[in-house]
């Protein structure tokens, strides 16, 4: 039993559970302001856009287009299939196949 690794796991458990649990248990009991509720409805797309930007535009915390050139190209068919079919599974498969082909070629 590696104490170092398990300390990280237990500590990691505590710090990931708190942000997940606190708002839904506390905020659900409070009457929220209309603007706050509207703000919260925009959170999903806003977070998603940021997450995608991190995946496609950064390498090791730094903005890098070159470091992501293949990923950016693979994103094109992925976006197109998502718009056309709106099928999550198919989108993921097209994405994986595109990047695998690109990495194989270049």
């Amino acid at each position, binding site marked *: 039993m590696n104490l170092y690794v398990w300390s990280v796991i237990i500590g990691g458990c505590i710090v990931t559970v708190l942000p997940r649990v606190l708002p839904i248990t506390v905020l659900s009991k409070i009457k929220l302001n209309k603007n706050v509720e509207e703000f919260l409805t925009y959170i*999903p797309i806003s977070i998603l856009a940021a997450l995608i930007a991190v995946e496609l*535009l950064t390498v090791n915390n730094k903005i890098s287009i070159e470091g992501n050139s293949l990923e950016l190209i693979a994103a094109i068919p992925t976006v197109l299939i998502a718009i056309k079919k709106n099928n999550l599974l198919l989108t993921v498969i097209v994405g994986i196949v595109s990047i695998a082909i690109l990495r194989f070629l270049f």
Partner: protein
Amino acid sequence: MEVKERSQKALEIGGKANIYYFVQGVKDCIPTIFGYLSIGFACGILSKSCGLTFAEAIGMSIFVYAGSAQFIASSMILSNASIVNIIATIFFVNFRHLFMSAALAPYFKKNSFLKNLSIGVLLTDETFLVAAAEGFNRKKINYFWMIGLNITAYLNWIVATGIGVILGSIIPDYKVFGLDFALTAMFIGLLISSIKGSLKINKAIIIIITSIITLILSTQIVSTSVGIIIAAIIGALIGVVIKE
């Protein structure tokens, strides 16, 4: 007697409805399974290559249950970073769940504390996004539906990491098969379906562009995990400020 029978019947119907919603939640999780499976494989392979044992890798998936945070934690363990440093990093990487949990809160006003606790504990990017879409379309989210969704994603993640660790002895680099891109592709798919399903397209595009620009600017100063939080807030604020 009659009353008793009737309440018994109501209970049965209630029980059946709960099972129905639970199964529906499981079904609604299915589209995300393949993507999460790929990332889970990748996470398991990476954990293995960072020197984690099977039990440690699975333990991390069970207790931390956070894709990107696990990737980063594993490589920090490999480089022998301090425990406090790793835990602080996990905290920042996963802090975005605070906003996801807050965004779902209005749908669960009538639930007890314990019920909401059971929803929040297993909240993750994918289940949040599927739930947010459900909430937007139906104006409410059933508790048992949410539990079905959450548990399916959770078990899928644990099993996928386990398989990944085993595969890790055969495949040294998870990038070979493009598994790491599954996450990006899934986010793209979820973003496009949430634009289609909800807002006015112009407004959605403004929010997205604002969020991306904010992220690019903030990563000049802070780490990307803090950048995500800033970008999410500014993007959503713009959504409130601008008119349809």
